[in-house]
């Protein structure tokens, strides 16, 4: 079974909680996906407001583990403080660390990411860094104490699917023992199946499910695709060949003329 920071996780789908049409639809999608981990965030509460409380209760009722993020943080200090505040609220050392470097692509600022990861590991956090598919950055994150890596496969929310399969393949080959979770850019179940076939350990999704016409049906479709890709990877897939190979044996075939 997949283990993340020593915690066994029975589903290889991690699901974001944002952008659903309603809290009820979110709850349905979480249940139907079978996910055991959902990502959550923190925002300013309005004075006298109870916005956060309702969401907090909903997540509690779902009985899943939370992975708080530092979404929207553009500096190391912002990300570190947000992580600490998230730990206060959610009582978990897990943090999905995002340090955003570019407004349009939401590309991680990998320099800030490594620095923030080092600080947070020193503070006892178990860091899930949202990173690129760059191997050197990945090395630095592991040096900083990260035990899980979460490379993007395309920009957040883009639904483009894997844009650089060879980079993802190289990452899997370089870090055979590190749990690798593709985070961001997945649009369709086939994208998720593809990265699972490459040997990735899990997939983190949000918009592809939340933005579907029927989010809970899509959550289930993704869960199946992820399982299928994982099973296929371990079943030993055939490589492609240039020429046709008959699947029906030709030996013993009748000769009629």
């Amino acid at each position, binding site marked *: 079974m997949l283990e993340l920071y020593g915690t066994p996780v029975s589903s290889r789908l991690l699901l974001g909680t944002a952008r659903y049409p309603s809290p009820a639809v979110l709850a349905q999608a979480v249940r139907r996906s079978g996910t055991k981990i959902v990502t959550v965030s923190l925002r300013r509460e309005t004075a006298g407001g109870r916005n956060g409380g309702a969401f907090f209760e909903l997540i509690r009722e779902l009985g899943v583990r939370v992975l708080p993020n530092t979404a929207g943080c553009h500096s190391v200090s912002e990300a570190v*403080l947000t992580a600490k505040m998230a730990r206060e609220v959610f009582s978990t050392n897990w943090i999905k660390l995002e340090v955003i470097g570019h407004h349009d692509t939401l590309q991680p600022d990998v320099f800030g990411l490594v620095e923030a990861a080092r600080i947070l590991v020193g503070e006892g956090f178990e860091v899930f860094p949202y990173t690129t598919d760059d191997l050197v950055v990945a090395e630095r994150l592991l040096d900083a104490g990260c035990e899980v890596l979460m490379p993007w496969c395309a920009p957040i929310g883009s639904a483009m699917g894997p844009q650089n399969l060879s980079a993802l393949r190289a990452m899997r080959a370089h870090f055979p023992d590190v749990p690798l979770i593709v985070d961001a850019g997945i649009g369709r179940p086939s994208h998720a199946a593809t990265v699972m076939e490459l040997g990735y350990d899990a997939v983190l999704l949000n918009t592809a499910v939340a933005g579907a016409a029927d989010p809970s049906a899509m959550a289930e479709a993704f869960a199946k695709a992820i399982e299928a890709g994982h099973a296929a990877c371990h079943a030993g897939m055939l490589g492609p060949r240039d020429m046709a190979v008959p699947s029906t044996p030709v030996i013993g075939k009748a000769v009629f003329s």
Partner: protein
Amino acid sequence: MTLIVNGETLESSAATLSELLLVLEFEGEWLATAVNGELVHREDRRACRLSDGDRIEVLSPMQGG
């Protein structure tokens, strides 16, 4: 004194962070607080004295990806 709470400037006579939260009707175990960029733990809010110009952040859970 003047305080900046979640980016909004306001006048308050609250002496401590816990007093301020009470006055502004922030309640709930799900809140996290920071003053001038430093986390203030739940149990330290009562002892956290506020000064003119302090920047206070009060955050709560929300949906995220």
